[in-house]
């Protein structure tokens, strides 16, 4: 395995024409191999943009994003993306594909042998806690929201990518299902040793999953810290953010010994 960070931002700014300020500005940080970095912040702070800069859905206006030590501009975009798992809210499953076909997507694009694909799909369904007999042939609209999200995770993991990007994957779920999936995902992270970049606006979720939390504000990095440091921060904006948790009575002991630790 190569050494060095899995992902690195070097002076990255992304702006669009006619916007008053850059969407993200002067990002400078590295994500270590096997780490779970959770990006939090208010709507419009640049979380999703940061994520999309990693798998080259967007290219930086200034600066460089490096994946596996190589600038995203130097990667073949298709190769780069196939080596990165991607999960979005509402899963983004293909409505005309069955569960089996959705999960098999990247292996099939990479032309794996059919036998190995079938095996992998069963394995993935088991991994995310779905019975392959019952679910493989179903279409996304025949699943519940939580089941769809599990399929989304299974699809992202199918080709065994070293890096996983998740954009508010559990955002649209009811609280009980969400808590369940968060728990299972945290366990999954520990088992698989993936590098994970996870976007959410739910700080509780961040504290549960993260090895480090990145708080963004107006396109800039406000604070980058481990969950424990985050809870004791003196940064005023971060404290205001934390205050919302206190109201809900967050139990500090439940905080995860997260993936990388």
């Amino acid at each position, binding site marked *: 395995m190569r050494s060095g960070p899995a992902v690195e931002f070097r002076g990255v700014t992304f702006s669009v024409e006619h916007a008053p300020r850059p969407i993200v500005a002067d990002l400078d940080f590295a994500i270590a191999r096997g780490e779970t970095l959770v990006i939090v912040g208010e709507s419009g702070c640049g979380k999703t943009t940061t994520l999309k800069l990693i798998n080259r859905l967007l290219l930086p206006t200034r600066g460089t994003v490096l994946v596996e030590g190589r600038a995203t501009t130097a990667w073949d975009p298709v190769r780069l*993306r196939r080596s990165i798992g991607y999960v*979005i809210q509402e899963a983004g499953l293909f409505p005309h594909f069955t569960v089996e*076909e959705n999960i098999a997507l990247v292996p099939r694009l990479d032309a794996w042998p059919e036998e190995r694909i079938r095996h992998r799909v069963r394995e993935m369904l088991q991994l995310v806690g779905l019975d392959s007999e019952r679910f493989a042939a179903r279409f996304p609209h025949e699943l519940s929201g939580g089941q769809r999200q599990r399929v989304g995770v299974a699809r992202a993991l199918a080709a065994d990518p070293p890096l996983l990007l998740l954009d508010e994957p559990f955002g649209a779920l009811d609280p009980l299902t969400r808590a369940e999936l968060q728990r299972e995902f945290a366990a999954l992270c520990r088992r698989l040793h993936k590098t994970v970049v996870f976007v959410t606006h739910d700080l509780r979720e961040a504290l549960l999953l993260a090895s480090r939390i990145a708080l963004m504000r107006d396109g800039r990095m406000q604070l980058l810290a481990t969950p424990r440091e985050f809870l004791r921060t003196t940064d005023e904006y971060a404290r205001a953010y934390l205050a919302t948790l206190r109201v809900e009575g967050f139990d500090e002991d439940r905080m995860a010994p997260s993936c990388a630790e």
Partner: protein
Amino acid sequence: MERLQFFAQNWPLLLRLTSEHLVLVVISTAIAALIGIPLGILLVRHPRWKDLALGIAGVLQTVPSLALFGLLIPLPLIGGIGARTATVALILYALLPIIRNTITGIEGVDRHVREAAIAMGMTPRQLLWQVELPLAMGVIMAGVRVAAVIGVGVATIAAAIGAGGLGTLIFRGLRANDDRLILAGAVPAAMMALAVDWALGRLESRLRARRPSRTFDLRAVGLAGSAALVLLLAIFSAWRFATAPTAGLTKPRLVVGSKDFTEQVILGEIIAQMLEARGVEVERRFELGGNLCHNALIAGQIDLYPEYTGTAYTAILGHPPLTDVRAVYEHVQREYLEKFDVIVGPPLGFRNDFAILVRGADARRLRLRTISDIAPYAPSWRAGFGQDFISRSDGYAGFVRAYNLRFAAPPREMDLALTYRALAAGEVDVIAGNSTDGLIAALDLVQLEDDRRYFPPYEAVMLVRRETATRIPEAREVLERLAGSISTAEMRQMNYEVDGERRSPAEVARAWRARKGF
């Protein structure tokens, strides 16, 4: 009962026209889909051209069908008369709904799904074939369905340029004042529209249903579709070839045209039969609407057709009307040879002038004899005229000025054949018909005398391309033989035999030849 009998007697014709119609629609819609869907995809990828392309397609669709057919005739390769031109026109009409729905369908694919597909590492091609097209297929199919249904309708007009199809019966029925013929064309056309709509609707809902991707491989469907189309085209052209007169390539070949009214068809039949009797192979391109005959003659699509000197002089050469019969003929003869390299044959013997017609009952009651006689009644009368009469320089405008007529309302502008029906039914009180029309006697109409000599002479003549006359001497011979051979009374009689007694033009022409010993 009578209707059933009619269908029973004519079902082979009906079957042939229906299949012609269907083939026309299927081929043109399929080609339009093969052009329109890729074009739509291209426009989604290059949105800069989208408005322009949709604008052009939209404008094409607003061009009236007969006008579009007319515009296509002089064009090389795609033009001319017959099924090919009709197919081109139908394709142009079908493009808009297909392109538009392709764009709408692809743009309508859920943003998240598209983003996920790209983020999974799909190439643009994979995105298109595996995600965008399958998800847009239902909407695209709806566009094809709309195009096909429009096509069934427009294809009826295609009969005007000799493309066949069910419109042939409708046009014939309108001309001959025969409801059975109109219905025999219109009812199957309507049923075909419903059937096409239903069948493609079924296909559409199947495609809209979410189906496993592998059992529905779009690429295979596209390939199979294209292959089927090529096969269909091949069978169709083979069929056309097989049914075309093939009595030998050594025979000289000549295409006889005619305009779209009974007299023209009879004249076309007469000359066609006379040529055939002399061993010339003849192709009939009858019932061409508007000025299509002239355009087709100039373009070399037909070799010969019957024309009237007055029409040639004013409508085609653009001169102001002239009443001197001899002068008009000589002018036309000279100018046609110079301008168009077309020979004007000797006069056939009769004239088909504009005839101002009223109901016989009115004429007797009000003692009407000349056009001047109607001036006092005009303010309470309604007039109905064919498009031709309204627009030409020796038509309506000069007519009302010459006779100082004021009608209750502006004249109803309608199809010439319909004016006879409208007059007989009392919808209008005066029309401008043709003096040789068989319906004049059949419907008890009276022609009023042109006492102020307003209308220019319309002597019937045959026009033939000079090149054809040189190549096929028989054409010249027949033209000479026909000089002065048909009197106005004979022409009116033949027209009546077709329009009133419902005999076929070919049969009437044969009987006349037998009487004359031609």
